[in-house]
């Protein structure tokens, strides 16, 4: 009787620990092969055949298709430069320059990776439609209400993620630091 109880307990712990750890790593991701520059993180290896098992699991779970390395690289951000979570009710400014790339796109998603509906039908910017300063730097305002210049609407959702995708770029598996890839800064400038 006691043996049965102990075996059952061990199996329950095993199931809890095992499935729990898998769920955690598949939803939140791991730090394996992560490239972090400022507030942005990328996993360049997910676009190659030697993608790590944890990334494979999270890709299979979410149902996305990773950007292939010969195509480009995707950086995502869910927090600003001061580690504050991006809030759709606040004004967030993305400014600076981007790494060398033929094209880039910046897109706003909700936490599940869906686009956020808005009356302008603007879900992001491409490098060609953005308004730049004389020095080539740009400033994008992410806010729920309309703003002058490059306004990216949030639809007022609480949390969102930004994704900067660089296409045809030297940035990739070999990139290590800000010097190789100068990423734009993200700053929360005001909350109602």
């Amino acid at each position: 009787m006691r043996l049965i109880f102990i075996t059952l307990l061990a199996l329950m712990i095993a199931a809890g620990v095992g499935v729990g750890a898998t769920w955690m790593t598949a939803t939140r991701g791991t730090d394996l092969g992560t490239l972090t520059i400022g507030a942005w993180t990328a996993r360049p290896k997910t676009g190659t055949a030697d993608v790590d098992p944890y990334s494979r699991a999270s890709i299979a779970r979410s149902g996305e298709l990773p950007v292939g390395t010969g195509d480009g690289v995707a950086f995502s951000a869910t927090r600003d430069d001061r580690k504050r979570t991006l809030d759709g009710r606040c004004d967030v400014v993305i400014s600076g320059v981007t790494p060398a790339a033929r094209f880039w796109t910046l897109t706003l998603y909700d936490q599940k990776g869906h686009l956020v509906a808005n009356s302008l039908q603007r879900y992001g910017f491409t490098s060609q439609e953005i308004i730049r300063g004389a020095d080539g730097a740009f400033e994008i305002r992410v806010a729920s209400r309309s703003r002058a210049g490059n306004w990216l609407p949030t639809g007022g959702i609480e949390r969102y993620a930004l994704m900067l995708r660089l296409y045809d770029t030297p940035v990739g598996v070999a990139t290590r630091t800000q010097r190789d890839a100068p990423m734009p800064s993200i700053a929360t400038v005001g909350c109602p």
Partner: protein
Amino acid sequence: MIRLLFTIVAGVLLGAIVHLVSVLALPRIATQDAYSRLTPMTKLNAVAALPVAAPSNEPMPFMDPAFAMAICRYDLSGGSLKLSVPVSQAYTSVSFYTRNDVAYYAINDRSAGRKVIELDLMTEAQHAELPEDEDITAADRLIIDSPTNTGLIVLKALAPEPGLMPQAQASLAASSCKLQTEAPAKQAEAPRPKR
């Protein structure tokens, strides 16, 4: 007491094994992965255009709304595949994914270096069966080895401004992906001069 401690240690160790096995198994058992999501809306060994990503109409999460996309879902068990994608004005890329959504190859219009991206996709076994001289005549055709029999080819064309989306879609609509049923027939037509 010792027995309880032993139980917990054994449970955690077993749990680690469960974790590793489930992480490795997840790509195989996932029912909502990209390939499964795209299967009902694509055709086998033919190009099918995807609708432009919009909030109510997204086949997959994290789609780039600035791109026109088309999918060729392939099955190489009947022979190798011939793919040709005309280059759009801004940026065009072709990415290859296995059945389990691993991106094993991607190429863009600049690295392809011509007006039409032309590729042959085959399994490693089919590649090995190619006659030697075939490889030479095929020197100007890129041959890609697919690690799996089935998979996805994703064709993307960028619309740098929303107004250019119809052009990007039109350039993808002119692309083709066809199974080559007979290998010898290909050998006969391969030396045909290209323009």
